């Protein structure tokens, strides 16, 4: 009886493990192939039969990208935009989250509903008036134009998440500051923000990722190569050099590193915050 149960469990375990490995290959092989291709010479990319590690294994493709000022500029631009978007989004969302979490005021539900519904508005609908607006305001092909428009994606999510986070903190915390003669402003910055750092990190990481990955606005609202961000840079590489696949893959990996590092560092917090947002938002 016990042995059959144990064998059955062993079979079940083997079955789950097989399933996990097959699914894992589906998820990981394309990524592995990207890595492998970035370490080949361009002549070997389509060799038959395909090989994971080839004779001319080298980091030349990475050196090409990192030694090229035009490519590095894409990275600089992406860092500037994503950092600015993250800082501004957090600042604005902390204030808004505080208002939603600690005050009741007329129009609260309406404003909240508007913020939630902003998330559903299609970027393709916005990009046309944004183009008109950004040109009219002289922000076409500038950092502020991109930073401002990226916030339409990052702000609603950040406000919802920060409000939810602040709601989990007891109100007695900020009341104690007010009893000591502090204002709601000091309660926010001295007490609530410092203890909300874990939640703010999760929101910040997600904000950074959204901005770093954004494609449509970066494509439409910038024009010159020195203002392009990494996703557009990857696309430009596709057109310019008639398919230097190894360089395109090296650029793709270099462009993915910031998000990968952030994710691995903050994985647990991040997944927790994300699912809370997706389920509750």
């Amino acid at each position, binding site marked *: 009886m016990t042995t059959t149960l144990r064998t059955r469990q062993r079979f079940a375990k083997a079955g789950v493990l097989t399933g996990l490995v097959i699914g894992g290959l589906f998820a990981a092989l394309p990524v592995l192939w990207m890595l492998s291709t970035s370490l080949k010479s361009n002549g070997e990319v389509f060799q038959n*039969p395909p090989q994971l590690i080839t004779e001319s294994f080298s980091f030349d493709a990475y050196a090409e990208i990192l030694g090229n000022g035009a490519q590095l500029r894409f990275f600089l631009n992406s860092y500037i935009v994503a950092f600015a978007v993250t800082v501004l989004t957090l600042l604005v*969302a902390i*204030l808004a989250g505080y208002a939603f979490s600690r005050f009741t005021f007329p129009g609260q539900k309406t404003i909240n509903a508007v913020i939630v519904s902003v998330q559903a508005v*299609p970027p393709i609908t916005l990009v046309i008036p944004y183009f008109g607006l950004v*040109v009219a305001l002289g922000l076409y092909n500038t950092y502020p134009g991109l930073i401002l428009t990226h*916030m*339409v994606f990052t702000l609603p999510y950040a406000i919802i998440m920060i409000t939810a986070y602040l709601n989990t903190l007891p109100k007695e915390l900020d009341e104690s500051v007010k009893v000591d003669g502090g204002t709601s402003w000091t309660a926010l910055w001295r007490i609530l923000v410092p203890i909300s750092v874990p939640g703010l990190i999760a929101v910040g990481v997600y904000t950074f990722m959204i901005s770093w990955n954004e494609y449509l606005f970066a494509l439409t609202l910038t024009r010159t190569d020195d203002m392009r961000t990494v996703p557009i840079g990857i*696309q430009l590489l596709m057109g310019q050099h008639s398919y230097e696949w190894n360089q395109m893959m090296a650029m793709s990996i270099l462009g993915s590193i910031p998000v990968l590092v952030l994710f691995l560092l903050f994985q647990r917090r991040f997944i927790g915050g994300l699912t809370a947002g997706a389920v509750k938002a």
Partner: protein
Amino acid sequence: MTSTTAPDTTAPTQEPVTPDRPRTTLTRRLSPFGYLSPTIVLIVVLMVIPIVMVISYSFRDNVIVQENSVFAGLANYTTVLTDPNFLAALKNTAIFITVSTVAHLILGLAFAMMLNTQLLGGVTKAIFRIVYILPWLFTIAVIAVIWRLLLDPSGVVNYVLQTLGLLQEGVNWLSDPGKALWAVTFVNIWSGYPFFMISLLAGLQGIPNDLYEAAAVDGANPVQRFLNVTLPQLRPVIISMAVLDLIWTSQQFALIWMLTGGGPLNVTEVLSTFTYKQAFSEYEFATASAAAVIVLLLTMVLAFFYVRLQKER
């Protein structure tokens, strides 16, 4: 912003606000709007004004590129709705989002259940979890480039299929009109399932164990437990994720733009690529605006369902 820095009430909120302290109540009433003012300004600038602008563009002619635009009534909408390319884009979008969402759900659920197994240790599961999330960590531009390499006529996908005897000769997945839409949908399935999976995994972990134990006592087999415990418990998450996914997938632009550009012969044209081309390739901003408003309306229908579902919960 000045009102936010102004001294606020010293009274705890629990205390009823008494009418003999009008100044404190006034600041207390105004301060939330102070805190919200940057958000309100940004929402007006980034959302309210642009939507008003795009709607007004859609009823006019010669917008953006020319100074003197004229009222055109519904002409732009007639142009868009009778354009065979738009109708093709509508149909392609419907196929693309439905197949993607169903596949995301099936893969996401299957993977989440495997990752939630009691049979394996925590470390093994944690490693697999990272592997399974991988596709989601790459930006769409990168995903498009990877799959252009993999799906190349002499690429590794064709090599594997030929070696297994499933294909006679290399197929150009992305430029064969009969296959391009399915190829693009497949890539979108690969890139999008992890988000479903993460949410469903959280949902699975939230199902109380007693339910399974009770079912086991009643003699339920694994399939019955899945159908009678797991699915009903996950139903709210599944439904709201499915609606969210339909909305997001309908907004997908970068993937299709970089994989096929809507081609060949518009077989992968979706609403977003159609609208983009009208605006930024044809410079027909007025018809593009009409298409953009139609896209907005379609999204609002989906969003309406989403909100209704959230309220039911």
